[in-house]
């Protein structure tokens, strides 16, 4: 309860444009923001740029944020949308790596729950952009296929297809390379 009050006070100061409190908010949610952006952009520098742009959007529009709601879901939407915008701008729809390409040595860990962020990012590189984006949107960030369809301007059915393929590819990666060895 006290933590919530403290956070509301932080938001209140940010609404007033207080730079010191904006910095506090930034540092408190830096990891959260970077974690989301890097899943979509697969690159630390791009992810930082998207995260920072998201923070700027937050600072500019925080007046419309209602403190009674949770901050994270609101911020998450901004982060996801900004990451997708960056992806569109950069036009980097890189082809997925062949499955035969080398999986980073770090993925030789014996169980999935030991996978590090770098391992997961390395796995994700083997998915194509749309597969990875749909996988992230649906499975990690909880969007529906309908929402994904409108966000990526693709039919809802295509979203399902990309998700299925993404999962198949990940499954294949895990088994082929003995990542999942329980």
């Amino acid at each position, binding site marked *: 309860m006290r933590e919530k009050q403290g956070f509301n006070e932080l938001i209140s100061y940010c609404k007033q444009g207080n730079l010191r409190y904006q910095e506090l908010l930034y540092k408190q949610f830096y990891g959260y923001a*970077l974690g989301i952006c890097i899943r979509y952009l697969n690159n630390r520098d791009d992810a930082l740029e998207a995260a*920072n*742009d998201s923070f700027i959007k937050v600072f500019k529009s925080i007046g419309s944020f209602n403190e009674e709601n949770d901050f994270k879901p609101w911020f998450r939407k901004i982060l996801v949308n900004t990451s997708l915008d960056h992806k569109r701008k950069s036009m980097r729809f890189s082809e997925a790596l062949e499955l035969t390409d080398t999986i980073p040595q770090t993925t030789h860990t014996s169980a999935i729950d030991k996978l590090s962020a770098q391992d997961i990012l390395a796995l994700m590189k083997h998915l194509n952009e749309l597969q990875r984006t749909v996988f992230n949107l649906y499975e990690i960030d909880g969007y529906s296929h309908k929402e994904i369809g409108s966000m990526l301007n693709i039919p809802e059915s295509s979203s399902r297809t990309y998700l299925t393929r993404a999962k198949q590819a990940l499954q294949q990666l895990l088994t082929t390379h003995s990542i999942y060895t329980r």
Partner: protein
Amino acid sequence: MKASDEELIEQIKVVFNDYDDGLSEQGWTELRKKFPEKGNKKLPIWWLSGVAASLLLVAGLYFGEVFNTEKTIIETVNNKKVEIPSDTIISSPKSRNNSTTENNVVAIENSSVTPKTYQKTNKFSGSLITEAPVIASNIQTGNKEPEKSVVAPVEIVKNPPAATDNGNMVATVKVENNQTTGITQGDVTKNTIEKEAPSVKLSTEEFLNKESQKLANSKNKNIEKNNTSKTTIDVFTGTFFNYHDKHEAKLSAGVGLNANVQVTKNVVFSFGAGISQNKVSYENQVPTTVVSSMFAARDNAMSLAPSNSVYSATATNDVSFNGQLLTIDLPMAVKFYPTKKQDFYISTGINSTSYLSQKYTYNYNWSNFEVKNGEAQQRQETEKSTFRGFDFANSAIIAIGINQNIGRNTLIFEPYYKPALGTMGDKNLRISSAGLNLKFNFNGAKK
């Protein structure tokens, strides 16, 4: 979904939920390149507007004839707050024993005294002096003023009545056993005048307890206010133009206070009081409500003419009429904040007016064949009244407020329009006005 899928998804959520590479400081530096603090750039423009409005206000008041022609003497009584915590009362048996003065009067400077309790040795008598925060005031009837607070062993003081004299608070303290430890520079006791309140006499202890109680109550009230109140206070200055059909618009000014009470999240009830100076000027077209008064003034002027004047030859032309009203405005309005950000509001309400002073001046030319061969002469008649009249809801309020945050407080620019719903003053002038209020909103309570 396969178990491995679920595990992988769960692992991704765990790992990326707080992906901190420890470079948040660097990230913030990067962000600051794109996101400079914009407050510093904006504020000077707002402040300049504020200063300009204030200057207009001062100029308006300075040049107002109300202040030039009618001097009002306002007597103010300086009642300064005295703070005496009860726990500072101490007694000093030694000082009682070594005291020599009888029925000494204790005088301390008029300004509030910070309670201090300490002891020192009286170098004249060698007695131990207890300096207690007993408060009195400068008594300026003597040639000498006590330069130092006088010490009194509060415990033994019985009759310290407080009274006011010429705005200065005077407290006298009598010592029960004819002993006191009062020390002032020089012989203060000779130059002090004892004055006692004729009716209410409190013992020092009662007096101190009462003051302490007041302090405690006021502190409690403040705490309660901070915790529960959703009320804020605006101080505002305004500059505006009064207008009416066919009359010259004149710049006027006002100042006042508003209280804002939050009704719902987006709706605030605002009420307050302000003093404003309203000027109207009519050239050639005198309002019908004023004509009768003006002709009465003219007739009065003519009656002063020689008895054999040919009144029938008297005529008026080139008439003009000026009104100056110093009013107390009592606005009541509802503010609606349409956006969640609450950076602006729309306000509507009514304004009632009471009149501190009214001054009406009629200027006209008249001619009489008996005077200067009928040559036109300029005449001016003036009517004045003070503290007369109250017009309820004589104008509506329509305003838009734009908020600019300054720390916890807010600077508000409020352009407004006040269409006349009724008339103003003794002459029933129907005046509308439009102007700009500059408001400073104090918001002490934390959200």
